């Protein structure tokens, strides 16, 4: 099996071959590859830019791999601020000994994910580190998008909170894929590019106040941040939050809370109550949004708290995830 060697990272012939065979051929960015930096033209509009590093373990999991995650994650970060993702760079830190066939599979899925929304991968970098210095492969992606819809987060009392689908799928898929739990599950990561879904929602309503993709820290942490950043109190209805039974079962077993598990293909939105149905219909018209649900309401301005109403009718306050989630003993 062909493997990554330290020479693949030395900038010489092997490095050139790797770049030509794997990255340039799959990302189809020959035009940009001839120069030290990509040059491109963008409309004279407001731009959005984001960067993220991906260090997921395992690299391959049900529903995706680190490459798909890296591209989808950056596209999603651009999409939730109302931008049309346009161009992207990617940087690879590869451990010596990494199988080149695995690298090809990962890069191929990056190319496919980017192609879904016509994002061009225009520049990149490859470094190879000694065996033992990295966990196989790390990827950094940076993306630029053009703002098509300027969000002005004027959140009002009575606004609705919508989530595009079931929460916690990615978190459980990764836990199961690590093979340490002895659990068998059919749960797949929700890892996907959200731009088409978000574009539909933005077509349906020009008044979407705010969007977030609840990745690490889960739905609860993302909403706590919104509550604090914008000084609003949101009350979630526990029963309305979509959670798959398998995710709920795994959480019960391990003592985890699905509201704090990572998602990689979900968006949470705050919309005016009167636009709630139009946005829901738009989300549900897409496969990724068919389980979209209204999960809560903005209750007050100037308090900055996230509350959860339980099926018993009591409410409790939700906070940010504190520290690592570690499985319990019994």
């Amino acid at each position: 099996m062909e493997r990554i060697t330290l020479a693949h990272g030395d900038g010489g012939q092997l490095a050139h071959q790797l770049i030509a065979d794997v990255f340039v051929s799959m990302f189809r960015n020959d035009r940009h590859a001839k120069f030290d930096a990509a040059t491109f033209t963008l409309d004279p509009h407001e731009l959005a830019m984001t960067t993220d590093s991906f260090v997921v373990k395992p690299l391959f999991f049900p529903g995706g791999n680190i490459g798909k995650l890296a591209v989808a994650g950056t596209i999603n970060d651009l999409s939730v601020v109302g931008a049309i993702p346009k161009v992207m760079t990617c940087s690879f830190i590869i451990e010596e000994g990494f199988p080149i066939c695995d690298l090809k599979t990962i890069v191929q899925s990056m190319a496919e994910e980017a192609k879904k929304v016509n994002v061009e991968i225009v520049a990149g970098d490859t470094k190879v580190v000694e065996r033992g210095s990295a966990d196989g492969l790390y990827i950094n992606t940076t993306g630029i998008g053009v703002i098509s819809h300027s969000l002005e987060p004027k959140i009002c009392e009575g606004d609705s909170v919508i989530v595009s689908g079931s929460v916690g799928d990615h978190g459980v898929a990764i836990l199961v894929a690590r093979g340490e739990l002895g659990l068998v599950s059919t749960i797949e990561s929700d890892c996907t590019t959200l731009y088409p879904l978000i574009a539909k929602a933005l077509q349906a309503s020009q008044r979407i106040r705010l969007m977030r993709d609840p990745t690490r820290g889960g739905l609860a942490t993302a909403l706590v941040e919104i509550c604090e950043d914008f000084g609003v109190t949101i009350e979630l209805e526990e029963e309305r939050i979509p959670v798959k039974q398998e995710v709920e079962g795994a959480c019960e077993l391990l003592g985890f809370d699905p509201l704090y598990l990572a998602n990689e293909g979900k968006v949470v939105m705050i919309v005016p109550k009167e636009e709630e149905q139009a946005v829901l219909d738009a989300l549900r018209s897409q496969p990724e949004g068919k389980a979209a649900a209204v999960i809560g309401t903005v209750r007050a301005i100037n308090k900055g708290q996230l509350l959860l109403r339980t099926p018993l009718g009591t409410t409790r306050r939700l906070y940010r995830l504190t520290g690592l989630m570690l499985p319990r003993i019994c």
Partner: protein
Amino acid sequence: MLDVMDSPTRSTLSQTLLQEVQMLANQFQQTFGRMPSFMEVCGSHTMALARTGVKKALEGYVRLISGPGCPVCVTDQVTIDAMISLTDGSDRIICTFGDMMRVPGSYGTLMQAKTEGKDVRVVYSPVDAVRIAEQHPHQEVIFLGIGFETTIPILAAAIKEAEEKQVHNFSMWMSTKLVEPILRQLLHEREVSLDGFLLPGHVSMVMGRAHFEFLATEYNMPAVISGFEALHMLSAIRHLLMLALKQHAIVLNDYKSVVTEQGSVQAKYWMNHYFTLCDEAWRGIGVISQSGMDFKKEYDRFNAKVKFSVLTREPRRTKCRCGEVIRGLIDPPQCALFGKACTPLQPIGPCMVSSEGSCAAYYQYMREE
């Protein structure tokens, strides 16, 4: 939370049951002139009562007291120090359940030891630690065996596997606890006035309903075995109230889908095959005779206490009141450190760090500020 395809009907059921419980609690107050007090023995119940809102919904109706059923919280400081100091030896791999990683010893945590380069690994089952030992034949793999009757059979399963596969570089540092002796101790001491026990479904699954019969026959104390969902716990509390109202002491199995009369014969067989009763030190309580299980002599080759010696210093005392929390004497917010010096990010005591600890349950689910 419901499956995405379900329709929301659970709230109606829960709220009807809640009203019935509140009504019975009012009857109890009218009859006896005070609020009924029940102790949930198990840390998983403590968490579930707080998370589902049952505890909050019953405020002013029923006093729910957290008992000594969180395995991390009841582990004595000296034991925690000893477990952490096991990482000092070279060529050792320390394996543990996740809960233990951030538990503060007197001079650090396992997480800090890992950050400093010690080989400390979180495993999901002690059997995984046996596999690690097979993969690293030139290193000693030590599993930190803490837990109650729910966990002890799993520890036994790991020893069985190590024995069958002739894995010689695997051992366990045992500090397990049993529910019956601590309940007897609490009832003897009578520090807390109780009207009944909410008994743990998981422990009962292993030990069986009959195991807890002594509560009714010897102490005249009603008890109900419960599952961990809001409906399970409300149903069990309803039963407890009815028993307390009638002054009728029986041990009721309200979790029949999981718990049988005699429990798991096989789990009990393997527990008793490798382990024997021993005296154990409980945090904030002291040594209780025959309240834990440790290796039988013939299995000393798996006993990390025999294989390795550790140097522990005098435990550093803090103002942490975990000892009183686990005896049900105070609620977490009554500790001066709670939420200030002691938070889940910087815990002082184990009740704050454990995912089954009362302080963590309060901090995560009951804080309102």
